[in-house]
């Protein structure tokens, strides 16, 4: 669409590119400190509309916890207002005839609205622990820096290195992968949630301090009444075993074990922190 033209200025950034390679080169020149390459996920309303046209609320409800499930991929566009939440809500309403088919997806949009309201309330306070940690470990005992092997994707754990690679190359991760990676960092590696949350914001196209920081705190247990953790069985099931099959660490997987055993290993609390539903039902609360 034609832009209302202000008087020209040579320091305006260009609007015409022959290709994405040209845009990539311009960004490299203008922002040399910004790491990495372009994401295969394109910005803009046209790309967002293609994603929206593929949204299937009923399939989303059934399959969203699986890495290969029918998730929408709309989060980067919603985060930056390419679509407003109200527009997506209306699109979901138009696409369903029964309320039940849209309940889960509308619920997820509600989460986005909730995080934004929390941010409005807390302001820069979202950077701080909202509550005490319920892990039995002192907040000061969590390392303030992201471990280099996690940043490099060289932990030797196929799942975690795979999630890191996807995060860094595409700028998007399935919500379940975000939760597993966050739980691994905070509970297995004893890294403070803020180090992981800041790392995510470097890369996530939907990087939103409210959703991101408060969800990390939810995993860590300082925005929740218990820590979120998982075991190999859970990860394997919702990833269709794609990581475990060829994992060099499969023989000494740190996630192997029952929830009881892992809880004893990870946390230092006298009363059980877990509340794990029976196998086959929906997994514990997602973000």
């Amino acid at each position: 669409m034609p832009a209302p033209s202000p008087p020209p200025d040579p320091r305006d950034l260009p609007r015409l590119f022959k290709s994405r390679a040209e845009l990539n080169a311009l960004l490299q020149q203008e922002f040399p400190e910004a790491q990495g390459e372009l994401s295969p996920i394109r910005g803009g309303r046209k790309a967002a509309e293609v994603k929206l046209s593929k949204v299937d609320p009923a399939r989303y409800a059934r399959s969203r916890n699986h890495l290969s499930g029918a998730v929408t991929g709309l989060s980067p566009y919603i985060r930056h207002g390419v679509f407003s939440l109200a527009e997506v809500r209306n699109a979901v309403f138009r696409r369903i005839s029964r309320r039940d088919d849209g309940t889960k997806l509308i619920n997820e949009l509600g989460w986005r609205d909730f995080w934004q309201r929390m941010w409005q309330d807390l302001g820069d306070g979202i950077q701080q622990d909202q509550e005490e940690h319920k892990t039995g470990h002192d907040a000061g005992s969590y390392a303030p820096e992201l471990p280099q092997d996690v940043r490099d994707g060289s932990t030797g754990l196929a799942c975690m290195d795979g999630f890191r690679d996807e995060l860094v190359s595409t700028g998007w991760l399935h919500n379940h992968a975000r939760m597993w990676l966050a739980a691994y960092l905070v509970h297995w590696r004893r890294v403070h949630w803020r180090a992981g949350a800041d790392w995510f914001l470097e890369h996530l196209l939907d990087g939103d301090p409210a959703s991101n920081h408060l969800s990390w705190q939810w995993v860590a247990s300082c925005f929740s009444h218990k820590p979120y953790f998982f075991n190999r069985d859970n990860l394997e099931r919702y990833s269709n075993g794609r990581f475990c099959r060829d994992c060099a660490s499969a023989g000494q997987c740190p996630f192997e074990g029952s929830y009881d055993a892992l809880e004893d290993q990870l946390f230092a609390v006298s009363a059980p922190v877990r509340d794990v539903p029976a196998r086959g039902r929906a997994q514990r609360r997602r973000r």
Partner: protein
Amino acid sequence: MDLSNPIVWVHEEALGPANPALEDCPQAPALFVFDDDWIKAQSISRKRLGFLYECALELPLTLRRGDVVAEVLAFAKRCDADGVVTSGAVDPRLNRYASRINRELPLWILDGDPFVELPRPPRLGRFSRYWREAEAVVWEDFRGS
């Protein structure tokens, strides 16, 4: 007081056609600024910058980089504007910029269509509390078969 010749400041939370400032002032020159301080402080990767850039290219915007407040004020001067129109932001960083712009020029902040309009501020703290109050109101607009 009406603004007779405003500019529109588009920020990172409203890079779409439903931006109420763009909807309200389709003829006004509009600006998006890549925030150098934020990019540096948060080590924002090129992926994110490219995504923002591609969003911005589909809107009628002039693109700049630098200090957001200085760039918005300079753009207003360049366009001989008597004020700035923008959309309401949640990010405290953007709201700080808005306050600083408003010290120099009249600033109108417009809100878009909300996800849910509640009769009173909901109880937050936990999602379940909020959703108990909000869910039924969200679904009021649904006309199923």
